[in-house]
């Protein structure tokens, strides 16, 4: 005699699903996994942490763009700064003697 179908959404159905999930055939890596890891290690040797580590940021264009904008803002061309008030002591501002 076959089992009656489980009621949709019931606890029994949920438990049956979880049971099926645990009973799935276990996924396994293909044979010679270790050899492939060794090959990958040989292809990508570790880089020592060095002073030029900041160069990694070049891989992130957003950081580069931000740095560029910051550089422009701080470049000192005075465009973004208000004009300085004339210095009273400077020769150009001194009244001409008659």
């Amino acid at each position, binding site marked *: 005699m076959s089992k009656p179908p489980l009621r949709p959404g019931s606890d029994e159905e949920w438990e049956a699903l979880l049971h099926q999930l645990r009973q799935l055939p276990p*996924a396994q*890596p293909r044979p010679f*996994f270790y050899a492939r890891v060794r090959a990958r*290690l040989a292809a*990508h040797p*570790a880089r020592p942490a060095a002073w030029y580590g900041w160069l990694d940021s070049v891989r992130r264009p957003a950081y580069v763009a931000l740095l560029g904008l910051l550089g422009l803002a701080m470049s000192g061309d005075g465009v973004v700064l208000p004009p300085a008030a004339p210095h009273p002591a400077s020769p150009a501002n001194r009244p001409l003697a008659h």
Partner: protein
Amino acid sequence: MACSLPLPFAFESPAPGVTTSVASADDELLAQLRQGSEAAFRTLVTRYQDRIYRTAFSLLRSAEEAEDVAQEVFVEVYQTVGRFRGAATLSTWLYRLATSRALQHRRRSTAKKRFAYFTSLLGFDNQLLHDLPDHAHPHALLEGQQGLRLLLAHIGRLPSQQQVAFTLRHEQELSYEEIAAVLDTSTAAVESLLFRARQTLRRHLQSPARHV
């Protein structure tokens, strides 16, 4: 976070004495790895490759990507073991690397798919970026198990933390404490993540429109 997990292995439930010996074996392995022992690295890979691969596979559902992530994890361990301070156990560290790298892969492939979609709208050819069915893998052989297929599809749509917690609990059979250590959170937070994940999944599976 300091973790001394009572159950480093996911698929067996060893007696307490066995657990201690497993933990001390891992400590010994770690010490040898720090000294650059090739034999220790081989032992590490042999001991953990299945669990790391399965974790990655559970989160990605692609044999190719799971292989890539598993390789990445062991390469990273080899290259950074000198900097590992031992705040977590070896198995916790490996699971952390596996879950974070798998989620990174998923984000990247989602971005690629979006890019492919937009460029296809502009008329470019993106054949290489389309999903290919993975017929070779056992999970592709789920004919007649529609409920399970739906469940797997909805697990893949859970928020990342919930997905990791659910996968580690129901597929890798890790304890709540182990999952908390991997996610660097409390056991209560894991319970909450699992509760919300189950609720979401049951709601989706109950809804009349059961299409994926």
